[in-house]
């Protein structure tokens, strides 16, 4: 079972992602409300997958993606953000995310996006 770390400063979004991807068969190994917490939890859990918000206090998502990449070159990262402009999506992908899902999202949007991430990983 693949392990997932959920990073978002909104409790209700963390809860929504956990409900949805728990049903999808992922193990929710950790949840963090900012980049700093995410790094600490990632070091402790070594998750396979991360959902990453971008606009967060203390350490934002782009900075956190860079730091995660230095720890683990193989972790799969799906950005889940309200920032809907192309430049932000391109920057996130360039920094090391593999997918970008724009808020607001439905359960099927999320499972489809995470499914693509897992499928790409299995094909690597």
């Amino acid at each position: 079972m693949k392990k997932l770390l959920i990073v978002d400063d909104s409790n209700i979004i963390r809860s929504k992602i956990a409900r949805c991807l728990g049903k999808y068969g992922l193990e929710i190994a950790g949840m963090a409300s900012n980049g700093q917490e995410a790094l600490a939890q990632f070091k402790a859990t070594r998750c396979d997958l991360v959902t990453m918000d971008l606009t967060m206090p203390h350490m934002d998502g782009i900075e956190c993606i860079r730091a995660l990449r230095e720890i683990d070159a193989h972790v799969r990262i799906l950005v889940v953000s309200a920032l809907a402009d192309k430049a932000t999506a391109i920057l996130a992908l360039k920094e090391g995310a593999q997918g970008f899902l724009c808020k607001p999202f439905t359960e099927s949007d999320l499972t489809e996006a995470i499914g693509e991430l897992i499928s790409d990983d299995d094909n690597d």
Partner: protein
Amino acid sequence: MTEAELRIFIGIVQHYFEQQTGRLAEMGTPFLGDPNALPIFDFTGVIGISGNRRGCVYFTAPSEMLRQILVHGGESDVSRENLADLAGEISNTISGNARRAFGHEFMISVPIVVTGREQSISLPESVKAYVMPFRWREQDAALVVSVV
């Protein structure tokens, strides 16, 4: 703000409610708000705007509307903390989605949530505040955009 720019925000609000609840928000006619009497409901999520534009965007809604949105989304915890969290998240989503039209230099802050109708939101009088009222399931709420 131009009329076309206001329409962008109206479209984002409509998309949010349609996608998240399956029911459209009925948008009222936008109007220029009195800076000393801006609308405020039980929970208000405020986003600061910087970069190529400056000002703020806020979403304000009654508890019952936020509670129903949470329940519709499968959230069983409808505590005040989660109602406040949702108000902040909606304001963040609306402002973030606006970058599709305004570009990545339309910088948004993390949300600040104001709780209670007795509070007031003070905006600089020199910046026009446009109020976009709407109804969803018989309840009134508003988006206020004050950006130059």
